[in-house]
């Protein structure tokens, strides 16, 4: 099984499908899907091989592919959440600065 060829074909098909269905807005979807394919390359390679060898069946392969997409979504959520926390800390810092400044002015 030529996995590189399969991956290339998958990318081409996804690009064509996204362009057909979503026009210019499809670019975002294409980018997301390419990220998915690139970051999951090794796993996809292994799972495809196991499927071809008959070690896993079609439903199991489908679950693995879907789980990888869910993990990418979860990773995005984690990133957003951690950034929000950092932003919260930054806001706290600003408040402390404002507070100390005001208190300093009043007690002068």
């Amino acid at each position, binding site marked *: 099984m030529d996995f590189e060829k399969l991956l290339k074909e998958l990318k081409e098909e996804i690009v064509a499908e996204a362009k057909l269905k979503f026009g210019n807005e499809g670019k975002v979807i294409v980018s997301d899907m390419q990220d998915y394919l690139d970051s999951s390359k090794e796993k996809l390679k292994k799972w495809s091989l196991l499927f071809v060898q008959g070690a*896993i069946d079609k*439903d199991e392969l489908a679950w693995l592919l879907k789980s990888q997409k869910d993990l990418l979504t979860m990773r995005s959520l984690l990133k957003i959440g951690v950034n929000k*926390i950092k932003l919260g800390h930054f806001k706290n810092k600003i408040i402390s600065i404002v507070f100390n400044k005001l208190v300093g002015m009043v007690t002068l």
Partner: protein
Amino acid sequence: MKTMKKVKNTWIVVMTFLIAWSCVPLQDPVTLRETQETKQATLTLIEKSDTPFSQNEEAVSALKTRMENIETREKNKKRNEITAKMWELLSSDEHLVGSYLKLWEDKGTLSTMFIEQATPQIEEAYDMMLLYETKKDKQNKNALTEFINNLTN
């Protein structure tokens, strides 16, 4: 005296607004412990998914109930949308653990190779949730909260 009271009240309003603006989600030790325990329970059950589903129905049902309870609790917390969404991704029938259990139920048993490949996927999802919970603040460290409390006492 009246002016002082007015100034004090204005301070309270302004600071309350600023604190609300700056709030970050707080770490919940119960969530942290229960996520860890649920992760263990899930992995233990997944290990058994090469045996007939019918022999494990009770344990599956218990795990589902446990996950539903946590998800509901997390959804009811304020400033907790990310954790709630993560639990949804983990437990619903269309995603990760929920869909794994559904697949097991539909097929009766799952192949050893599949279990081997699926386990790290589910483990990774739990680890991300645990990591996010530990990133949250352990307590509201905002010094201004103390300030407001002193003013209102």
